[in-house]
């Protein structure tokens, strides 16, 4: 048996081999509340986990940012923490989500860099002490489907109510629609998956219009 | 009664004679003409012979009838117990019961014989597996079967044990209805998976809390494997066919002493470790910890 290499060595080796899934391919859309059943029905037909039925989730997501005291725009690190409210024993999830890249018109999906990992429940205290501030938080409830490597979530977004201590109560939905997201986490350069996603999104039309959404433009709309 | 029997015998005899003579009728008919009938009038001779035999049969039949008429019919139906059902299956081959009945009869007979012998010998040697003595002169308690008991009894026993030791938590599952498998967690030290057969402890395996709770794979830690071995020994030791619930209770009492498995030192050598193991043996009476080698 050889002696174990240091973890940093193996990580850099993994980066070199490009096996770390650090790119998220993403399409987003929404469906009105009264049609969500139709969509779920269709997804059940299209996706892999047919027999077990859709997986439901009830997650609380906290969005942190790490920034310096000086108003320097380049020094901002967004971090997201997600925990399952319905499965208290499950590990929490920590996630870094980078800038949204739309690419040119030929590119079927938006791409953003993403580092996704499970973590222990001390994460919120850890991040707070690290210097992160909670930017906003919300609750997402809905269903998750799988189709090959693709993940489809249909979720209702709730605003945290006045009683922050009881995340399960007093929440209000922020719109009359369900958010629909189609995403794949893959190592960089695997653009073929984007094509698969486009074809899948095509199959959900006209119920849901899944498209890449320009965040920069969104910031100005209102 | 005597007369009844005699008449029964006579009737049975008459039937026997009748059967044998009927047999000879068929024999005669089947043989047909024989050489000893000669050449002349052989048909006549054969006819005469047959007539003779038939007359005998007729006489016999009459005998049977008189004998049967003499019999007094039994006052009521016989109570045959389970054997009455034998009549419902008519073919002898398919029953194959007789041999088994004989065997089991012999078997129980032998057991009876041997156990009386063994009982005598053991009584003279005064070696008792439990530290209780049962005086044979006392009227014996009604025998409790220990492998075929209603589930509630076992349930009561288990909840009783659960209440007895605050630091033992018990989870029971019942893969086969009357025979529960319980998982007894002893504080934060270890857990034991105990399978019952009725009120008897059938199997014990000791593991760490982090290990899987299945009944067959043994622990990956030497210390728990050793404790498992000792539990098997204790399980046999405490076994008492007459007082099964007491056996389980005393076993659990002994088992409970393992909550000091890691923290107590050996009573004899005063050390914690011997060949890298803590004292894994607990004295059956005093519950004091000893190393395997020190006991």
């Amino acid at each position, binding site marked *: 048996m050889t002696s174990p290499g240091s973890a940093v060595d193996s990580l850099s080796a993994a980066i070199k081999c490009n096996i770390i899934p650090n790119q998220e391919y993403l399409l*987003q*859309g*929404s*469906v*009105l509340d009264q*049609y969500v059943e*139709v969509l779920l029905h269709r997804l059940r037909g299209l996706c892999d986990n047919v027999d077990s039925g859709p997986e439901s989730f009830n997650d609380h997501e*906290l*969005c942190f*940012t790490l*920034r310096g*005291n*000086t*108003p320097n*725009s380049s020094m*901002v690190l*967004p971090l997201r923490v997600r*925990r399952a409210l319905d499965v*208290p*024993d499950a590990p929490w999830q920590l996630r870094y989500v980078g800038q*949204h890249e739309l690419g040119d018109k030929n590119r079927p999906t938006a791409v953003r860099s993403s580092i996704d990992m499970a973590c*222990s*429940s*001390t994460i*919120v*205290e850890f991040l*707070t002490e690290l210097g992160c*501030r*909670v*930017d*906003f*938080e*919300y609750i997402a409830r809905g269903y998750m489907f799988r189709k090959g490597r693709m993940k489809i979530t249909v979720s209702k*977004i709730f*605003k*945290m*109510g*006045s009683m*922050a*201590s009881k995340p399960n109560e007093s929440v209000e939905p*922020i*719109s*009359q*629609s369900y*958010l629909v997201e189609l995403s794949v986490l893959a190592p960089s350069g695997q653009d073929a998956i984007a094509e698969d996603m486009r074809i899948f999104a095509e199959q959900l*039309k*006209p*119920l*849901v*219009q899944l498209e890449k*959404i320009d*965040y*920069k433009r*969104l*910031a100005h*709309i*209102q | 009664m005597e007369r009844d029997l005699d008449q029964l015998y006579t009737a049975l005899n008459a039937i026997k004679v009748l059967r044998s003579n009927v047999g000879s009728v068929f024999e005669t008919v089947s043989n047909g003409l024989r050489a000893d009938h000669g050449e002349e009038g052989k048909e006549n001779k054969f006819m005469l012979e047959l007539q003779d035999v038939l007359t005998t049969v007729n006489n016999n039949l009459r005998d049977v009838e008189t004998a049967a008429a003499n019999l007094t019919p039994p006052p009521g139906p016989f109570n045959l117990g389970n054997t009455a059902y034998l009549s419902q299956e008519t073919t002898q081959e398919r029953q194959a019961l007789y041999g088994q009945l004989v065997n089991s009869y012999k078997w129980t007979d032998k057991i009876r014989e041997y156990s009386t012998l063994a009982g005598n010998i053991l009584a003279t040697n005064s070696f008792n597996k439990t530290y209780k003595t049962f005086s044979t002169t006392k009227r014996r308690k009604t025998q409790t079967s220990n492998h075929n008991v209603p589930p509630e009894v076992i349930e009561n026993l288990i909840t009783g044990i659960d209440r007895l030791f605050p630091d033992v938590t018990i989870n029971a599952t019942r893969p086969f209805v009357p025979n529960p498998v319980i998982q007894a967690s002893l504080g934060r030290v270890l*857990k034991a998976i105990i399978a019952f057969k009725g009120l008897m402890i059938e199997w014990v395996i000791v593991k760490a*809390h*982090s290990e899987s709770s299945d009944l067959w794979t043994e622990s990956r830690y030497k210390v728990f494997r050793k404790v498992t071995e000792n539990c098997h020994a204790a399980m046999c030791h405490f076994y008492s066919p007459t007082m099964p619930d007491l056996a389980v209770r005393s076993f659990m009492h002994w088992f409970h002493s393992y909550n000091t498995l890691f923290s107590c030192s050996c009573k004899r050598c005063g050390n914690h470790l011997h060949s890298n193991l803590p004292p894994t043996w607990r004295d059956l009476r005093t519950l004091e910890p000893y190393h395997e080698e020190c006991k």
Partner: protein
Amino acid sequence: MIDVLVTLGNTMQQARDEKQLESALDAIIQRVNDLKTSISSMIYKIENEYETLSWPTFLDNFALISGQLTSLSKLLSHDKCPTLRNLTVLPLLLSPERDDQLAQLTEGRVTTFAHDLVPDYLRTKLEPSAESKMLNLEHKAATLAYENAQKQVAAYQKVVSHVWDIVNKAREEWEVESSARGSTQQNSSVADTHLLVAAVGMGKGLKMVNNPNNQTNQGNSMIVGSQGPGRPSGPPGQSNLPPSTQPMTMNKAPSAIKTNIKSATQIHPYGR
């Protein structure tokens, strides 16, 4: 098929007519042959390639056949085409002998041109039994009383119009449905999409400062976090809180999470 052994009965036609007929027949024969080959190829496919045959190819074949049928019927109804109805097919020679040429022409389907087969193949009228039935019916109709007939016609019309109504209604419904399906905006709204994406991605509408209900702000440390990642121009002074107050507001932060941490640590990962 009426493709061989055709004798033209009408010799009164002019040579031009004959030529026209010739070419029309050639065209018909060609169409019919095409049709035959595509039908046989389809049968072959169904019989031999039924395992690999995909539904689209099957439909393609079917479309081909129906196209050929259409073109054949177009050809027959064309002005240039002589009225074949006026022509007669007349068998000149019947023989019970096997005719190899005929067998070859018909691909072994008809081997003899005998009297028992010819009536079937060259028939232009109904079968005699059917014809007599027809006659009977016609006779019956002729003898029917006028009022009776009128009554029956009225009843029949009623039934037909009823069915017509049902079909019409169904068609209307179907059209409404399909037109509804055609419009995408009914199932999702772009505004909602943008609202949701902006909320999840940038926290638009979720940040506590934006909350009109100001009571919610107590117990939240999100005053500091009010600057979105895309809006660096936010008030910088807020994050310069003195260190002494910072942990305080932070401790007050989502107290739900604090309690959750505690309860989570009690659950030992290697516990029983």
